[in-house]
């Protein structure tokens, strides 16, 4: 294609087969032992600290991190394989999810040595959990309009403001919070004057209020910070450079297997539920879903390989997330048409998980409409 999006050849290295075999062996054993029951959308909703610690013990977390902080310095493609297997099995991985995917790498990249030593080994052990502190009540897609503010004081900063959609803040230990350190009016351009801090969610002055989802589940929170003191060494990176640090994480956040596979356990259950001799209609619909999934998985691998090679495929990642999250939402729509309720208990549970979570798929991590704007610009629309 002559447009500017490029998806280089995709083939996971043969070396990833070893860890795939190992994680499958682990998950099969845990399933057999009844440690978990497969569910859909487990990276948001399946908070299980024992399971996360078990993954840490087995060496499945922090694979790419430096050895000095407990990591294994393995390829990001090894991590890709572990993550896609965890998602496909519907394992409960929400506890360590954000910490392992983006907080740890951010701290390793931007944090000072004390912060790295204090937090990263615990992330690798599956013991220290993070949330994301970006969106605010008046700042959703337009993240640069945030108003939370950190004021410099002796020995640290005092933070005031409100964050929303903070997944699992009530269960997690920290969040990396994006705040202004220079008022917008005094900054050279609206993307300047922001900074990131690692903030202990149990600090005095932090109030965590549940935001229940339409499913009745409690994953999200509003986090109100009133005169919260944050010591100097918890500043992540450089004061004023917060925006650039946040943007750098986006390609990692948007193209991973979790943007394609959130409802995979339902698809597998659907294949069983229609039986070995499905109607032509059921067969065709399943065929379409699997066809799309394998095509999108190729694109996702291509982006992961580009990242691993040191490129920054931000636009390609946005495109994969747009397509992948649409597919995640189509799976329950097809499933409910093909299998009436009340036939299969496991199927019904996975369908309910998926239907009620689906509105979030195309919102979280940047709405699909915003992502398409990014793609269109890269295509060369002037």
């Amino acid at each position, binding site marked *: 294609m002559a*447009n500017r999006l490029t998806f280089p050849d995709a*083939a996971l290295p*043969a070396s990833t087969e070893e860890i795939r075999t190992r994680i499958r062996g682990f998950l099969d054993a845990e399933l057999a032992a009844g440690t978990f029951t497969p569910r859909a959308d487990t990276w948001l909703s399946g908070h299980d600290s024992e399971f996360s610690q078990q993954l840490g013990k087995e060496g499945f977390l922090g694979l790419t991190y430096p050895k000095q902080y407990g990591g294994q310095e393995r390829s990001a493609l090894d991590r890709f394989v572990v993550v896609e297997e965890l998602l*496909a099995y519907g394992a409960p991985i929400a506890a360590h999810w954000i910490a392992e995917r983006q907080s740890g790498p951010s701290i390793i990249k931007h944090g000072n040595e004390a912060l790295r030593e204090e937090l990263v080994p615990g992330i690798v052990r599956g013991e220290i959990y993070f949330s994301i502190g970006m969106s605010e009540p008046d700042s959703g897609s337009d993240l640069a309009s945030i108003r939370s503010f950190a004021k410099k004081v002796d020995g640290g900063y005092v933070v005031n403001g409100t964050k929303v959609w903070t997944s699992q803040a009530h269960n997690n230990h920290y969040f990396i919070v994006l705040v202004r350190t220079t008022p917008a009016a005094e900054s050279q351009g609206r993307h300047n004057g922001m900074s990131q801090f690692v903030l202990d969610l149990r600090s005095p002055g932090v109030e965590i209020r549940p935001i229940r989802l339409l499913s009745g589940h409690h994953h999200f929170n509003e986090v109100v910070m009133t005169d919260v003191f944050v010591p100097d060494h918890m500043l992540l990176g450089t004061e004023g450079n917060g925006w650039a640090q946040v943007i750098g994480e986006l390609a990692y956040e948007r193209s991973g297997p979790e943007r394609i596979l959130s409802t995979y356990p339902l698809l597998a259950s659907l294949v069983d539920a229609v039986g070995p001799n*499905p109607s032509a209609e059921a*067969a065709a619909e399943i*065929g*379409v879903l699997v066809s799309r999934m394998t*095509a999108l998985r190729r694109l996702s691998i291509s982006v992961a390989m580009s990242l691993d090679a040191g490129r920054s495929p931000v636009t390609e990642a946005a495109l994969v997330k747009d397509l992948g999250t649409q597919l995640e939402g189509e799976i329950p729509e097809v499933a409910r048409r093909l299998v009436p309720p009340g036939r299969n208990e496991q199927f019904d549970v996975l369908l309910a998980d998926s239907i009620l979570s689906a509105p979030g798929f195309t919102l979280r991590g940047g709405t699909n409409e915003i992502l398409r704007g990014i793609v269109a610009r890269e295509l060369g*629309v002037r």
Partner: protein
Amino acid sequence: MSTVDPLLIETIESMLGDLCEPEKVGAAEGGLDANVWKALTESGMASVGLSESAGGSGGSLQDAAAIAKAAGRFAAPVPLTELSLVGGWVCEQAGLALPDGPCAVVLGDGRRTYWAPVAQSFVVVTDAGVAVVGPDAVTLGAAGVNYAGEPWADVTVGAGVTFVAGPAVQQVQARGAMARALLMAGALGQAVELSVQYCNEREQFGRAIGKFQVLQQYLAQMAGEAAAAEAAADNAVDVISGGAGEAEVLQVVAAAKTVTGRAVGIINRLAHQIHGAIGYTDEHRLQYSTRRLWAWRDEYGTEAEWSASLGRSLAAAGGAALWPKTITAWPPAAVG
């Protein structure tokens, strides 16, 4: 998996870009463009991917796929893939000499044989085996053209043809579907590119129409569907060149034909919507891409037939096999 040399892509795109100007593509309807065919055969491009020992140019299946995508992109009015990916492959497998001149592939009962009216050789594939024959050995019945003016005819093979052992009808059908998926991947990319260009050129309300968010959303959706289509076609190429068994070949081709065929419905609709009335006329080149896409999605099996076939095989294997046997098998991991 083998990586395609960017120089090969540059060469074929430059060749076809020069030869396949829209008016020439239009003039060739009902037949083929002899200059394009000559250029592709004399340069050896038409038989890339077929082994030199069989009379081809050598190179990988990925190389042949890249050439097919370029042919789709430029709407090359010739039966390139009937030779490079379908008929030539049958001959290679059966130990027969490659067909002379443009060829058609006569599958099973020979109904609606693509390109038959302009073919100089016929690769006949039946349950009795395969054969290559000249025009004298066949009779053409009912004939017509597809939506893009590419000719077809019903073909009856005369008595007395000697068949040799070769690929089964179903496997050749799958090669044809892979070829159409690759052609479509190229043409889908072209429809997106023409739409981006038009969004930048056309002004209304005092600005380029690409400034309107709704059209930006369309373009991004189209780019997504085109990327997915190409990925599905590439998966098929990589799985097949990796030596997959016959059952898996049928599955991965089904996925490719399904995703590309489905993308046609979305991309053609949006490309024409973006282009407005001018794109719907005989004057505008968009039609050379979109009419081909409408035609190709129906050839060698529709996406409905292929997706049902894939779905049946997956259901028979059961939910537990889906992840390890299919999803994580495509694209295949690199070889150690």
